[in-house]
C-alpha cells in the first residue's frame, strides 16, 4: 500500500495530535511511543492497520514500530474491553496474597488472564509492581490505582466501570 492510502486510516484529530508531538522532537520517529498512545486513546487499541498508518506517518517501517509497540505491555495490539484491569503479580503483592486473588478475579469475571469478558466490559491482564507495595495487593483499572484489594471489595470496586 502506498502512503496515500494509509494516512487516512488515522483521523484528522489523531494526525494533528501526533504532529503536535513531533513538532517538539528532534525527528519524526522519536514520537513513536506518543503516537501509539494517542491512537490507543482514540481507539482503545492499536490494530495492524493503525500501526502501519502510524509507521507511515513517522517514516518508519511497520517492523520497526511494531518492535516498539510490542515492547510495552501498555500498548494493546489486540482489542481490549472498555476497561482494562491490570493486576500486580510482583513480589510484595504475591506475599500479600495476590495469587489467590488472581484466581478469584478470574472466577468472578469468568475469564482467564489475557482475556476479555463477553460483554466487552473488562480485559484482565497481569502487570509488574505498581509502586504501591505498602498497600499490596494492588491493581490498576484504566488509569486508577486501587490499593489493598480483596475479593470482598471487588463488586464495589467494579461498580464505577460500566
Amino acid at each position, binding site marked *: 500500500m502506498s502512503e496515500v492510502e494509509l494516512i487516512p486510516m488515522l483521523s484528522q484529530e489523531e494526525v494533528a495530535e501526533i504532529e503536535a508531538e513531533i513538532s517538539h522532537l528532534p525527528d519524526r520517529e522519536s514520537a513513536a511511543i506518543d503516537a501509539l498512545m494517542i491512537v490507543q486513546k482514540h481507539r482503545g487499541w492499536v490494530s495492524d492497520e493503525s*500501526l502501519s498508518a502510524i509507521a507511515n506517518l513517522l517514516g518508519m*517501517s511497520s*517492523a520497526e514500530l*511494531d*518492535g516498539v509497540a*510490542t*515492547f510495552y*505491555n501498555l500498548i494493546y495490539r489486540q482489542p481490549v474491553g472498555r476497561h482494562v484491569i491490570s493486576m500486580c503479580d510482583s513480589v510484595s503483592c504475591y506475599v500479600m496474597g495476590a495469587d489467590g486473588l488472581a484466581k478469584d478475579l478470574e472466577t468472578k469475571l469468568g475469564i482467564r488472564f489475557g482475556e476479555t469478558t463477553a460483554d466487552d466490559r473488562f480485559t484482565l491482564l497481569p502487570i509488574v509492581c505498581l509502586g504501591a507495595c505498602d498497600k499490596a495487593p494492588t491493581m490498576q483499572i484504566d488509569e486508577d490505582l486501587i490499593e489493598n484489594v480483596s475479593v470482598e471489595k471487588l463488586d464495589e470496586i467494579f461498580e464505577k466501570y460500566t
Partner: protein
Amino acid sequence: MATFTVDGKQYEVEAGTNLLQAILSQSLDLPYFCWHPAMGSVGACRQCAVIQYQDAEDERGRLTMACMTDVQDGMIVSVEAAHAKDFRASVIEWLMENHPHDCPVCEEGGECHLQDMTVMTGHSVRRYRDKKRTWENQDLGPFIGHEMNRCITCYRCVRFYQDYAGGKDLGAFGSRSRMFFGRVEDGVLESEFAGNLVEVCPTGVFTDKPFSQHYTRKWDLQSAASVCPGCSVGCNTFASERYGVLKRLHNRYHNDLNKYFICDRGRFGSHFVNSQQRVRHAAVKANDGVFEYGDVNAALDRAVEILKHEDVVGIGSPRASMEANYALRQLVGEENFCRGLSDSERIVTDQACSILMKGGFKVPTVTEVEAADVVVVIGEDISNTAPRIALAIRQATRNVSFEMAESANIPLWQDAGVRGHAQHQRNALYVATSNSTRLDDIAEATVNALSDGITQIASQIAGQISGESHENTFVTSVAEALLAAERPLLVTGTSLRDPNVLNATAAIAWALRAKEKEPAMLIAGSEVNTFNTVVTCEGLTLNSALTRIADGASAVILENDLYRRAQSDSVDRALEGDGEVVALDVVESETLVKANVVLPAASYAEQTGTFVNYETRAQRFYQVFQPQDDIQPAWRWLSKIASRLGRTDASWTTVDEVSRSALAALPGIDASLEELAPTKDFRIEGEHRVARQTHRYSGRTAMNADVSVHEPKAPVDDETPYSYSMEGQNPGDQSGSVIPYSWTPGWNSNQSIFKFQAEVSGDLLGQSGGKRLFAVPSEPDAEVDKEFDFSVTQPTRPAADGLVPFPIHDVFGSDELSAQSWPVAQRAKGPYVLIHPDDAAVLSASAGSGVRSDALVGSFEVVIDDCVQSGSVGIAVGLNGRVEIPDRTIALVVDPDFEPRQLGDARVIAKS
C-alpha cells in the same frame, strides 16, 4: 601497542582493541554470541565473561564482559578462572531454558554456534523442568526457513538485517523471555541480503530453505573453495556437494572483497547446476532436425568435421572461465574469435577498461569502498547489478558515525553507542540513475534521468569542480562534497550501455585529481568474467561474427545464449543459415537448440578455473565435484576437438596448463598462476593434500549401496591441491584461499573463520586471494591524460514517436544462470516495464496490466512509477530471455491477453 596477560601468558595488541576480539585474535577460545566481527559489540548475551584483575596482587578479580572492555596496557585477565567458567556455564543454562533439544532435526546441527558454545562451557545436564515458550513460525519466502523456538535472543539477526544491510521488514518484537524475531506478518523477506541470516544467526532459527529441502549435514558435504558467478564482484564462496548435487553455498571470507557477507543472487542462484535445464549429454542433430544423445565420440567427430570448414568463427562468453575462452580463441585464432559480448556491451566495456588502464585511477576493493567518505553513484543501479558493492556503500555512509564516536570517546566497537550517538548522521551519498534504487533511502540527494541526462549531470559536476558554475543544486552539492572529501569514490558501470556515462564519470575523477584529490573509481562490469574478455584481445564484433555464420561459416559458441546478446532476427539468420554450429553450454538455451552439435559444459562447481572481477582480480575457483554423464569442462571439450584436428597448440591435459598458457597470452600483463592461487602441486606443510571431505564424512559405502555394496574407489585428483576423500588435511590454518570449508576443533560453525585469520577480520593466513591483472597505480601518472580522451559525444536520438527505452536490472532474474536456479526463479518477477503515470494514462494501461511492442519479445507487466521520466520506458532485462534493448524509441500497446506472473511461480525464465 598494549601488552596484556591472559591466564598468565602475555600478548600484544593495539591499545583500545576490544578484549574479546583481542583474545580471539590470539586464537584462544572464548564463547560469545551477540558480538559479531563485522558488527561489533552490544553486550547483550553475557556469554563472553572473563575475570579482570586490578594488578598482579589481585587474586579475586571481577567479572567483566570481554566484548564490552577495551584492552589497556598491562591488563590482566583470565578466561580459565573458575568463577568466569561457572558464570559462562550458567549463561548458557539460561539461554537453553527455552531452547528445544531438537538438534537431530535441526538444520543447524553440526555447524551450530550454540551447540559449540554449549559444549565449550560444559553445560551438559538440563535442570530446567518447566514448559518452554513456543512460537508459530512465519513463511518468509523461498529463501529462508524460520523456526523461532530455537531463538536465544542474541539480536544478531536484526542487527545485521536492519542496522547493517538497511532492511526494513525484519524486526524484534516483544520483551523479556518473549522475544520474537521475524516479520510483522508472513511474507517474503525483502532484502537481497536476507540469506546472510542463515550464517549470522547462531542457532537454527533462520535456515537455508532450499538446502533444507534436500538436506545434508555439514560433515557429510564435500566442499571446495569457489567464486560466485553471479556478477562482476566475484565474491568468494564455499561450495558444497553430495550425491552429485551442488547443495549449498556459504560465504568464504576474503579480506578485500566480500568479507563476511554475500548477496542472495549468489547464495541461492547456484541451483542452476542441478536444474532440469541442465545439459547433460552430448548430442548431434540428425538430418531430420532431431537430436541424438549420448554418443560422445560421434559428437566429437561431427564437431571436428564442422570445424574443418575453411571459415570458422568462435564466440566466447563473459560467463565462461578464462580457460574456456582462451582455449576457444586458440582453437579458432584471434582473428576469428569474438569475445561474446553484445556490440553495445563491447563498446562500453572496452571503454571501461581503457579508463581503468589509461586513466590510472585507483580501483577500490570492496573494503576500500567501505572506507570512502563521499560516494557518488552515476548511472548504475548497483544494488541490482553488483549487490555486494551496494552493501559496502551502505557501510561507507557510516564512517562519520565512527568519527563522531571517536571525538566523543566512544569505542568504535561499541555498536549501540556509536549508532545512538550518530543518530541519522551519514556520509554523503549521491545517486544519479535512470530509476529509483535501493540506496536512495540513505542518499543525500538522488536524481533520475536517462543516460544522456546522467552524462550531462556528470559532465557538469566535472565542470563545477574545475571552476565552472552551474545552477543545478544536485550538481553543485555533489561537486562541493567531492571537493571536501578525503576519500571520494565514484561508482559507475556498464549496465546502461553508454560509454558517455563512463567518460563523464572519468571526467569527474580527472577534475578531482587536478584539485589534488585522489578519487577511487569503481566500474561494475555486467558479468562474472566480463573484464577477462576485455583484457584478452580485441576480437570480432558479435554482429560481424553473426554475419559470417549467416554466410556459411562454421561456428563454435561457448556458453553463450546469443539471443541475449543481439537482436533476434540477426541471431536467427546466423543460426538458421548454412553455417554449422557446435555449441557448448551448461544450461539449455534458445541458441543451443539451434546448434548442430551440443557439448555439455561443466558448471563452475564442476571444474577448476579463473574468473576476472571488476578490479581485474583474477581468482581461482576449484572443482567441488566431478561432473556426471557426458559433462566436461569446456576447455577440455575444445582441447579434445583440437587434438583430433592435430592442433597440439590448442590442446592441454590439465587445467593448470591451460591456465598458464592463458595467463601468458594476456597482452602486457605479467601474472603467474602461483600468484593467483595454489596450483595442483600445493601441499599443506609440503605434504598433505587438502581434503574436500570432512574427517567425519559418513556413508561412503551406504550412499551407493543401491548400485553396489562395494565402496567405489575415490576419484584421483591430479588437477587441484584437493583430494576427493577425507584423506589429506582438514582445513589447515595456512591454506588460505584453498580452505574448502570453515571448521576447527570445537568450532563447527562458520564462526571458526577467525582461526584462519591472522587476526580477527585480518587476512586469511597463507592467503593468496587472487591477483589483480592491472596494477593499482601507487601514484597517479600525470601524463596519462594526454593519451586519453574523456570527451562526451552528445548522442543523437532518432526523432520518432514512442518511448525511449532504457534497461532495468533485477538482482533476481536479470542474470542468466542464477535465474535458472529454482529458488531465484521463485523470487524473480515476470517481465515488466516501468512507465511514468502520464504515459500510462496515454496508453490507458493500469498497473498490473500488460503491454507489448513489436520491438520486444513477449508481453510485459506495467509498473507505474514516477521515478521514470515521462517519455521513456524502463525495460526489465533478462526476464524475457533478452538483455539487449532496442536502440530507438518503441511503441507500446496494451496486451489484453496478458496474465501477470504470480510470486512463487517457479516457471523457468528464458524459455520460449
